[in-house]
């Protein structure tokens, strides 16, 4: 559909364009409309031809080519959510189901589990002071250790005082056999996407998994790792302590990312990452358990 087909826009339409879906800046769907908050995200949009529409505020407005449609408004995120509610009504509807907890689950009395849209499977162990927000699905044989926060909605800057900007339509899916150590955070996207932690992962303490991330099965994530939004990590990878992964980055299967590295580009399978670049090194002079 075209940007001019939208019935009511709070801001103004600057250039016309075509789009088929609404999403985040860093997700990977084609022909999408996107709210933008920074100049860095603007450059990211111009480098990727999948994005065909931008909602931007007048502060960050620059010269934009004619391929891309532009809407100028003060609150880009509110615009995007209102458009997705009207025209993509199936995805952005909140169905208020009650939580269902399997009777064999062991839950500490100080845990804080919401009463809507949470499903917990068999033999799940939930420890002290865990907060689980609506929209999570937990599989069988999962252990979640103390002070973990699961299902926190991601933070997108929005200069408005409306409380409707705090609604989130995403979901968190945790598969079987996952072990989450204490003080971790798993975020939930605002747009209707999924963060998935696949089976038999181990996540060490104080690491944060961003919104929209797909963690491959059998991968190990060490302490103090921050994984950016909408990145995909392959199966059987090892991510060392103190790493940071940029949003939108793809990492292949069975990679070794050593401690303290910062990943900014896509990486293919079977590679070793050291410092700031991904190079296939034969003589690796490091320490891996």
């Amino acid at each position, binding site marked *: 559909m075209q940007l001019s087909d939208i019935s009511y826009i709070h801001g103004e339409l600057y250039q016309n364009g075509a789009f088929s879906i609404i999403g985040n800046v860093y997700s990977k769907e084609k022909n999408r409309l996107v709210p933008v908050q920074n100049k860095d995200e603007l450059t990211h949009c111009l480098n990727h031809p999948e994005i065909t529409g931008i909602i931007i505020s007048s502060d960050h407005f620059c010269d934009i080519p004619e391929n891309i449609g532009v809407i100028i408004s003060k609150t880009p995120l509110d615009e995007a959510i209102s458009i997705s509610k009207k025209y993509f009504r199936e995805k952005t509807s909140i169905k208020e189901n009650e939580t269902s907890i399997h009777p064999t689950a062991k839950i500490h009395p100080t845990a804080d589990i919401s009463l809507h849209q949470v499903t917990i499977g068999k033999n799940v162990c939930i420890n002290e002071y865990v907060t689980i927000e609506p929209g999570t699905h937990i599989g069988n044989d999962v252990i979640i250790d103390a002070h973990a926060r699961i299902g926190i909605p991601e933070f997108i800057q929005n200069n408005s005082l409306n409380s409707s900007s705090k609604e989130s339509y995403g979901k968190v899916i945790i598969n079987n056999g996952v072990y989450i150590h204490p*003080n971790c955070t798993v975020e939930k996207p605002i747009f209707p996407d999924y963060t998935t932690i696949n089976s038999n992962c*181990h996540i060490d303490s104080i690491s944060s998994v961003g919104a929209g991330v797909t963690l491959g099965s059998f991968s190990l994530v060490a302490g103090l790792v921050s994984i950016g939004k909408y990145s995909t990590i392959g199966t059987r990878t090892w991510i060392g302590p103190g790493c940071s992964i940029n949003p939108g980055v793809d990492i292949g299967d069975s990679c070794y990312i050593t401690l303290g590295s910062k990943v900014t580009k896509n990486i293919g399978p079977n590679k070793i990452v050291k410092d700031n670049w991904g190079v296939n090194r034969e003589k690796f002079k*490091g320490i891996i358990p």
Partner: protein
Amino acid sequence: MQIINILLKNINKFSKRFWPLGSFLFVSFYIYNIYGSSILHLHKKTKPTQIDPTAHIHPSACISPWGVYVKKNVSVADRTVIRFTTSIGSQTHIENSCVIGNTGFQVIRFRDHRLSVVHTGKVIIGEGVQIGERTSIDRGLFGGTTSVGDFTRIGSHTVIGHNIKIGSHCIIGDSVAIGGKSIIGDRVTIGNNVSIANRIKIESGSTIIADSIITRDVKKS
């Protein structure tokens, strides 16, 4: 200590190709898990906790009823979690939402299986220690201890692995990740955002600048 790392790396490589070795290791650790959990069960029920009456403990802290020894003038802030078989020395100060005595990150890998090993050790914290918020201190592996020396200060959001020995009068900054089985001497200062690998020896009296990555031993030259 780094020779052991190279040996273990070669064993892992070799066990991937030669499947009887890998499966043997996996099965042996599976049996060790059963043995270790039985040991923990026996240790638990024989040693009840002893908390000194002069200690200030917030009512929302979760302290297990087996094997915790808390001594004079300790202050424990809200929502901390202290697991079994830990001992905390006198005049320490633990800030909010810490987790002490958690299982570490030793995971055995064999093809499509991941197995987390039962840690049967303890945690010993000395006198006059200050621990920042949201830190996690793991217990020892194979019966060992993680020990924190007297009068050290540990910052917030740190990760201290299993079987680590920290000396006295140290200063450790915020968001530091230390790998397992490393030894840190006395009077060491570590800056913020440092990541230290496992099996590393840092001699006493050395200083480490912030935002650094350490993969080899540090000697005072």
